[in-house]
């Protein structure tokens, strides 16, 4: 196995494009090392991105949004008070990935590129309308987060593409987001269903909303009908019922060892209801 | 030698002509088991697979030497194992 530590994303992209056999990028490594250990993925080339300047940084962008380096761990994300204040839902999604120990290494980009439909950090990013910056052989481009996963274990990235940053838009006034997942254990588990909601209010009325669900379809899914159910409402029972119905309608899960399709669909609706209340009260500035 | 009353388990009745309680002449656990096999050869493989003997409520493993008397309450049991 070849091991590289490039000092720029352009170099990383070039090395990945030139490599023969199986190539993996290494950021936090919490998925790649597990796959190597079990023998399910035995890379011929491993490219460690952490030596590239800026990969460990969380920076405020000029427009008031955020740029998150690709090697920023969940623990660092959670320790960043300003980011947590802006996007608590994004951060709490990432913080649900694995144990305290895993949090010391695991990254948003890794969670995204692993391609799991149950990735806990992805619904929050999708609801937040986050995007990723991709450095490829033809240059740098920006793509919405929801366009990256292509199905379980698959992404839309091409050989030579390397994600070089995560961009989260400015929170703006009267906004709030939240994420919850359901797992049989309190910790150390893979989501059986997950839901993230980001919304904005004007007084008591919801003016903007994005709803994303995880673990209930081959990829994390944005549910515009669910958002529509919220917009214009004051999160009254009718709106909640419509939200739950829309979320359940968007579910297309499988039966597997972690839960039946029926259970996942039911619980996605329950989570949507609970998450909507949290996001709503965060948007209104109520104490949490 | 003295006559012992031995309680088997129901599954063994087909080796003893339908009896679940049998009597044998013996003075120890080992001699009792041997006498049972002599009287009812079908019990041999069962005993070889592992047997415990409860004497007056105490479950005994590997105690062929333990003396027995007619006053003892004797139950044969599957060999007790533990984790």
């Amino acid at each position, binding site marked *: 196995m070849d091991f590289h530590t490039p000092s720029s994303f352009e170099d990383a992209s070039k090395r990945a494009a030139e490599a023969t056999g199986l190539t993996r990028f290494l950021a936090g490594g919490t998925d790649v090392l597990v796959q190597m250990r079990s023998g399910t993925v035995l890379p011929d080339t491993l490219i460690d991105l952490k030596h590239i300047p800026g990969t460990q940084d969380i920076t405020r962008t000029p427009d008031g949004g955020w740029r998150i380096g690709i090697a920023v761990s969940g623990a660092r994300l959670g320790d960043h008070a300003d980011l947590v204040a802006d996007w608590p839902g994004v951060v709490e999604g990432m913080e649900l990935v694995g144990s305290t120990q895993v949090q010391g290494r695991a990254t948003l980009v890794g969670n995204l590129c692993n391609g799991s439909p149950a990735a806990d950090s992805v619904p929050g990013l999708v609801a937040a309308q986050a995007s990723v910056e991709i450095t490829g052989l033809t240059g740098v481009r920006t793509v919405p987060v929801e366009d990256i996963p292509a199905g379980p274990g698959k992404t839309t990235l091409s050989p030579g593409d390397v994600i070089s940053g995560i961009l989260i838009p400015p929170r703006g006034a009267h906004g709030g987001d939240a994420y919850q997942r*359901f797992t049989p254990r*309190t910790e150390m588990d893979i989501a059986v269903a997950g839901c993230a909601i980001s919304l904005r209010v004007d007084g008591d009325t919801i003016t903007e909303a994005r709803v994303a669900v995880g673990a209930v379809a081959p990829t994390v899914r944005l549910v515009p009908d669910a958002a529509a159910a919220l917009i214009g409402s004051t999160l009254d029972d009718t709106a909640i019922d419509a939200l739950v119905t829309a979320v359940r309608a968007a579910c297309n899960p499988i039966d597997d*060892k972690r839960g039946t399709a029926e259970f996942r669909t039911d619980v996605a609706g329950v989570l949507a209801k609970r998450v909507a209340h949290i996001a709503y009260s965060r948007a209104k500035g109520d104490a949490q | 030698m003295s006559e012992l009353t031995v309680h088997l388990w129901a599954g063994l009745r087909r080796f003893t002509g339908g009896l679940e309680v049998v009597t044998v002449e013996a003075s120890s656990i080992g001699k009792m088991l041997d006498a049972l096999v002599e009287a009812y050869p079908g019990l041999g*493989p069962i005993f070889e697979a592992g047997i415990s003997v409860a004497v*007056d409520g105490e479950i005994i*493993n*590997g105690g062929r030497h333990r003396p027995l008397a007619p006053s003892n*309450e004797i139950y044969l*049991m599957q060999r007790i194992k533990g*984790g």
Partner: protein
Amino acid sequence: MPKDDIKEFRLVGTRPNRPDGLDKVTGRARYGADITAPGMLWGAVLRSPHAHAKILKIDTSKAEALTGVKAVVTRADFPTGLTGEEWNLQENTMAGEKALYDGHAIAAVAATSSLIAQEAVRLIEVDYEVLPHVTDVDDAIKPDAPVIREGAADASVPEGMPPNVVKYFEFGRGDTAAGFKDADLVMERSFKTEATHQGYIEPHACLGQLGADGKGEMWVCTQGQWFIRQMCSAVLGLNAAQLRVTPSEIGGGFGGKTTIFMEPLSLALSQKAGGRPVKIVMSRSEVLRATGPTASASMDVKIGMTKDGKLTAARAEFRMQGGAFPGAPVDMALYCCLAPYKIENVEHIGYDVLANRPKCAAYRAPGSPMGAFAVESLIDEMCRKLDLDPMEVRLKNAVREGDQASYGPTFGSIGLVEVLEATAKHPNLSVPLGPNQGRGVASGYWFNHNGETSVSMAISEDGTAQVSVGTPDIGGSRASIALMVAETLGIAYEDVRVNVVETGALGVNEPTHGSRATFATGKAATIAARAAIKEMCRRAANEWGIDEEAVEWVDGAAQPAGPNAGDYPPMSIKDIAKNMGSTGGPISGHHESVPDGVGASFGCHVVDVEVDPETGLTKILRYLVVQDAGRAIHPSYVEGQYQGGAVQGIGWALNEEYVYGKDGRLQNPIFLDYRMPVASDLPMIDTMIVEVPNPGHPFGVRGVGETGITPPLPAIANAIQGATGVRMSHLPMTPTKVLAALKASQE
């Protein structure tokens, strides 16, 4: 003379630091994988990806050609002609004609590094003819199920039974038909439990060395070094005395480390590699796929009860699969399931059934938790139906000394009534419950075990004592044995060192299993200490020139008694030890036996749960364990056994299970998906130690290790019914199952 009727204790019942504590908090303690040897090779094992397949051909040539590979073994390298359980062990160690389960070992490699060994394993080519498989017990017992092994049934199985039934078991007494007629309520229900794994955190690991001369050594994490010696010798055709087995510190066992898995492979590889030592460390997925799970069970129970709560009759019919080999603990499940109840008319029927799963190993009170789940659940449901207090019903029917057990014999000293009475008074029972909350109660029973035991102790030159024991210390047994020996000798706890020794140092010992270490090794060590006291009294008597019968041992010193009382100042153990070289030589004591006087242990658990009605998630709010310890030598480690057993039971009840896919492969062979309880899932586990001394032990000890895993399964099911009104009859009670049951009950 040594005293054997001590009632007041100086040390027994105190809580000193364990002797191996410092090693274990500093990382110094050496476990199975922590040792290396000069010239050491690394082993790796190729495992079957199929649940059931004929092995047509194994081509190891590419693996053998890889640089660094020093040996490859397959079943062809093992002796033939074994029978019975020895054949089973050999077949499980390495597949012969067929792979019998997903994870069954097919070949093994030794190489100069772990990475090379793993690469070599991937180069081995196997041609399989995949056969139909069966993994569920109810499918496996069908007459037309795929036949796992012809002729595997033992003599207990009458003709005409389905082909995978390998053992049939039936016992009972009274007249159940009449008993059911006397009942005001007769209920019948079917229950299922899924296979669970012992879940010890330390994967199996060993370092084996075997020369061409048949002399070998092994370092291994095991509950029983003699079992390893005997089983490896049998499987490989070795002379047992030529194999020296040293137990490492052990990272948990719970019954799962009382047998062999890859240990013979390290020896076979070593011999083929010219005697170089070979270390094999299992991965977690190997542990889950190929070692120790317990059986899964399908059970029908029928019980009769009068309207005032008297049990009149019970019938239990259990089917269990314990993998592709005989040995599911269906007999133990049946023996224990009704043991807490005085009941005249009982009928028990059991079937041990083969399935394409790994060979089951013992797991803490093997069988008892499954049977308790069925019986204790149904009794609770009947109490609810008759509006009776489940604690009162348990007390009303509780067995006492002199009662006939459900499995036949008359109980000696037991403490069930004391346990139930203590439970009923515990404050946890009067905590008010909120919405969606429920309380569940259940009892549990385990026999406990004695087993072959050999202990040796010696007095050191300075009057301290060393004790050699053969039972590995899994949960603090060094401390409890040191307490008993120090108490007996009349010296300080710190003046006793307990060593867990290798097979060359003592006679045969059974493993630390069956809740026996503190009982059996403790009893043998106490008897050995008394032998040393007798010798020390004799030395003092010789010095004083008096009859040795006229010397007694008081507070760690010989002193003249009877007519000679006060004639000489006491001679301390230090004085005697200092001069022992000139008074007759070394002073020691030893004891070898299968100790009699085993005392059974009953327990009762009370759990409060809250069930989320929208997701089916069960949260444990409070948990209480009450159990009879006979006498707690070191109460902290007794509590530890209670708490650990309860939490294993909680895992079994709520989330743990072996999930097999349609392809017969294990779907969840990692800790992420084999969901053992984590710290945040649990409250504190309250304990109460009841002490009804066991007359068969010098200090009154009953084994305490196993009973505690039994009540949680039904107690939680009972609490869930209290919280939701829904009766869960299939473990684990996952949110998916609970929510489905809730929805079904509302339709």
